[in-house]
Structure formats: structure tokens, C-alpha cells
């Protein structure tokens, strides 16, 4: 590559940020002490980038070859809700599952239930672990899911700052608790992201005949962990699942102010996505979660790390066998 060509490149690319590139070059050549470091680096990097861009053209060929060489390892994509992820449960379950089924390699996408279901509809994930029963049934009814099976439960709680300015502690139910926050116009942070928790919160407002709006009500559109951090910083009330709150416990100045209402039961289900890229893995994952070893891990998770059980496994419905590999391969075989 001759100097003339090099110069032209650098004028084209760097000229956008620094109009007088020619003069910069003059300075660089005449007085090395005044060398503008940033620009020199950019110039060299640009030249290298342009040279390597020819190699980049080969990239599809290389990756294509690599893909052909190891086509048998299709990762299992799990679309999970953020509460299971932010609380640390999946970090416990996934390695145990992979030990039990070494042929499956799991990748987790931790998103809100709304997005997890959207991913499922697009078949971007193989199996879902979510918690919005009504929407899940709809999902299966519309043919996007093969099978929905409840796995575990925990509960939602209304949390807030310890002084409790809206007197949520004195309210008898979740609906009353939200009503008193609204009446006091105390700040309330909402997930606002179509997640399972967000849907439950909206249905509680609806049940109380309220439509939350105003500067006290903040929709943040973020995961459970981030939402709790925001509620903590802003001394706000929040509806959260108990697991995420407990697992973040020490760092937060939020207290459980209302719990135990039957309207706050939170059920997590596993759904195998119809037309998944890895149906065998999805089937194995679904069964393992509901098998005795899976249940044991779920129960032990909270006890081991926080001294209380955060998720309770549910009694299984349907056939569950930990040595189900052949069974799952049978099920997944195209007819």
C-alpha cells in the first residue's frame, strides 16, 4: 500500500472529525514533540482496519465451516423471567441440570415474562420459565407452546421504605395497600415492562377500581433488580416477588410491608415452545425441573443462601422421570 493511497484513506475517514488533517500531518512531520496522539492512533488503526477488511470478507466462509463441523451441539435457549435470574436461582439450577444432562448446553435469556413469550412466539427460545398464568394459557392455546407445567411458587409482596408514610402495614389486603399508596400519593415504582410482576400489579390496581397515574407513579421499564434499586433510592413503594427482594436484601432499605394475601401468590411454569430448534433439550429441561432432584435444588436454593426457602416446588402433574432422555428423544422425533 503506497503512501498516496494511505493518505487518501486517512483524509476520508479522519477528515470527518478533524477538518485540517493535512495540516495535522504537517505538524506531525515537522515537530514530533507536538504529535497529536489521538489522531495518530486513529490514522494507524484506520489503515490497519482497511487492510483487515479484506480478511473480514472471508469470515462467513470460516464461520460456516465451523458451524458444519459441530452441528450436533445446538444450545438450549431458555427464556426466563428476570426474577428467577436476578435472585440467583438459575445460577444454581442450570449447572445442576447440565451435570444431569451433559449433552445439553444451556443459554439463558433473562427478560420479562412479556418479552419471554414474545421470544417464544418468534421461536427465538426453546423453553420458557415464566410467571403470568393467564397469558401463558393463551400462549399455549394459540399453539405457540406444546405443554405448560407449573414448577414452583413463591409470593409477591408490597415493599416500601421502613417509615411507611402511606401506612401500608395497616391495610388488610394487597388491593387496600395499593389504594392507600394512591390516596397518599406516595411514590410507587412500577416495572412497566409487561412482565409477570407488572401484569399482576396492573390487575391489582384494576381490582381496586384504580387507574394509577400522576407524578407519584413511575413506570421504569426495567428488570426486577433494577426496579428495586430505583425504589430504594427514591424511597418508593413497589410490588416485587419475595425472592428478588430477599436476595438483594442487605443492600436495600426496603421492608416487606404487606404479604400473605391470596392475591399475591406467584406461580412459575415451564413451557416447551412449539417448533423449537432444540425440542429434546426443552423436554429434558421441563422434566428435570419437575423431577425430585430438580425440586430439591429449588427448595435448597433459598435455605442455603438466605436461610429461608424462596421458591417452593409444586407437586408434579404429568409424567416426570429424571432418566427421561430416551423419552424426550422419542417425543421430539418428527412423525
Amino acid at each position, binding site marked *: 500500500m503506497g503512501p498516496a493511497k494511505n493518505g487518501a484513506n486517512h483524509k476520508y475517514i479522519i477528515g470527518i472529525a478533524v*477538518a485540517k488533517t493535512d495540516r495535522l500531518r504537517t505538524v506531525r512531520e515537522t515537530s514530533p514533540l507536538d504529535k497529536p496522539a*489521538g489522531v495518530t492512533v486513529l490514522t494507524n488503526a484506520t489503515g490497519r482496519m482497511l487492510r483487515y477488511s479484506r480478511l473480514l470478507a472471508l469470515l462467513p466462509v470460516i464461520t460456516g465451516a465451523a458451524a458444519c463441523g459441530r452441528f450436533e451441539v445446538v444450545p438450549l435457549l431458555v427464556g426466563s423471567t428476570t426474577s428467577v435470574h436476578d435472585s440467583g436461582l438459575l445460577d444454581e439450577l442450570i449447572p445442576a441440570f447440565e451435570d444431569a444432562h451433559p449433552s445439553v448446553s444451556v443459554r439463558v435469556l433473562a427478560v420479562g415474562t412479556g418479552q419471554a413469550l414474545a421470544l417464544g412466539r418468534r421461536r427465538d427460545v426453546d423453553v420458557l420459565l415464566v410467571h403470568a398464568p393467564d397469558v401463558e394459557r393463551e400462549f399455549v392455546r394459540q399453539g405457540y407452546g406444546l405443554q405448560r407445567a407449573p414448577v414452583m411458587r413463591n409470593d409477591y409482596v408490597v415493599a416500601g421504605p421502613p417509615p411507611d408514610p402511606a401506612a401500608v402495614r395497616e391495610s388488610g389486603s394487597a388491593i387496600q395497600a395499593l389504594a392507600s399508596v394512591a390516596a397518599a400519593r406516595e411514590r410507587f415504582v412500577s416495572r412497566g415492562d*409487561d412482565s409477570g410482576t407488572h401484569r399482576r400489579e396492573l390487575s391489582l390496581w384494576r381490582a381496586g377500581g384504580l387507574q394509577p397515574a400522576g407524578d407519584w407513579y413511575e413506570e*421504569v421499564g426495567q428488570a426486577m433488580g433494577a426496579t428495586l434499586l430505583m425504589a430504594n433510592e427514591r424511597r418508593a413503594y413497589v410490588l416485587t416477588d419475595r425472592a428478588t427482594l430477599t436476595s438483594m436484601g442487605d443492600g436495600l432499605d426496603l421492608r416487606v410491608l404487606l404479604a400473605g394475601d391470596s392475591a399475591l401468590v406467584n406461580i412459575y411454569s415451564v413451557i416447551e415452545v412449539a417448533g423449537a430448534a432444540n425440542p429434546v433439550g426443552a423436554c429434558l429441561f421441563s422434566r428435570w425441573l419437575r423431577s425430585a432432584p430438580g425440586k430439591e435444588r429449588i427448595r435448597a436454593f433459598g435455605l442455603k443462601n438466605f436461610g429461608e426457602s424462596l421458591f417452593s416446588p409444586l407437586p408434579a402433574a404429568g409424567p416426570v422421570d429424571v432418566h427421561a432422555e430416551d423419552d424426550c428423544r422419542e417425543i421430539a422425533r418428527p412423525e
Partner: protein
Amino acid sequence: MNPFAEAWELLWSGDLYVADVVLRSLYISGSALVFATAIGIPLGTVVALSRFRLRTPVVALINTGLALPPVVVGLTVYILLSRSGPLGPLSLLYSPVAMILAQVVLAGPYIAAVTLAAVQGVPPDVRLQARGLGASRWQATRLHVREVRASLVAAIAAGFGAIISEVGAVMIVGGNILGQTRVMTTTIVLETRRGNFGVAIAVGFILLALAFAVNLLLTLLNARGMRRPLVS
């Protein structure tokens, strides 16, 4: 409905949600740009024209501004403004002020670095000649800065392009609160997550159009700057 058709519909009808986040983005990044320019251009000029001990590390530090990772800036501002941080009592976290602060930290060094390079790029003869013809130090400096004005406008425009399209810092310090701190980039992240591709595409289109406008301006300025004689 096809998400592209939906996006078109939203743009065409002037959807309030889309308009709200676009205006907020312009307000926040515009304010940040004013402060960043007020800090960056004098800083870059002074460092370019002075000789002092530790100049080399200072120049290196300013040049780091060209590659400052937004999430690290976001994290730093978050820790500063958090309730348990040194500026906690001001209650600025999750407010537009926090977002402006983070973007000033991002764009300020960027503008300073480009100013520094541009001012240094003027041949020393220009200054010597001006001084020889009787210009005061201040007049010579003004001439110097005028000489590179096209580069400075380019620096400001590039700084704006960088902060308006940045998502890491504003998500951390702004919190993406609907109607308060939700801007174009955080809207795209959220609406994509929710599967509302129409809204995400509509906002993305506006962001792209803005980026294009900024770069068009840069290219035009660049072309003019190249044609202009050395001393006008």
C-alpha cells in the same frame, strides 16, 4: 400488523409517546452539549497552546475522552449521585439533571480532544506571524481558534452524535422512567424487549435521521474547511 407499517403510522400521525421521548432526548443531549462545549473548547485550546509540566499525561487523559465507555461514565455518575454517595443528599439520581451530567462527562473530553488536535494542527508560523505583525497574545489566540472553526463545529456535532445515540449511561443514571427520563435510546431497548417493534422502529428511524443530519452537516463543513485559504 407489520411493524414497519406500524412504525410509519406512528411517525405519520405524530404519536405522542414517540414525540415525547424525541423531544426529551433533544432537550437532554442539547443541554449537555451546551455545557460540554463551554468546558471542552476552552480546555482544549488552553492545553494546546500552553507548555507546562505534566502536559503529556494531561493530553493523554483528554484524548481518552475519544473512547470513554458510556457505561463506565454511567456507573461513576450513579455512585456519585446515589443516596449513599457523596452527592446523595441532592436527590439527583434518576432525573434529567443526572443524565445531562453523565452526557457532559462523555462529550466534554471528546470536544476538548478534537479542539486540542485542531488548534495544535495550525502551523506555528501563523501565530508567530500574527505576533510579529503586532497582535496581542489574546488576539493571536482568537485568530488561532478562528482558523480551526470548521473543526470545532465538527467536534460539537460529533459530540452531539455520540451522546444522543448513547444508551448505557442514560439507562443507569436516568432509570428510563416514563414521562421523566425515558429518551430515544432507552425507549428502543424497552420496546424491543416488550416486542413492540413498531414503536422501536419508529424511534430508531428518527434517531438514524438525526445521525444522518449531523453527519451531513459534518461533511459539508469538512468540504468547506478544506477549500478555505490558510489565513483569511
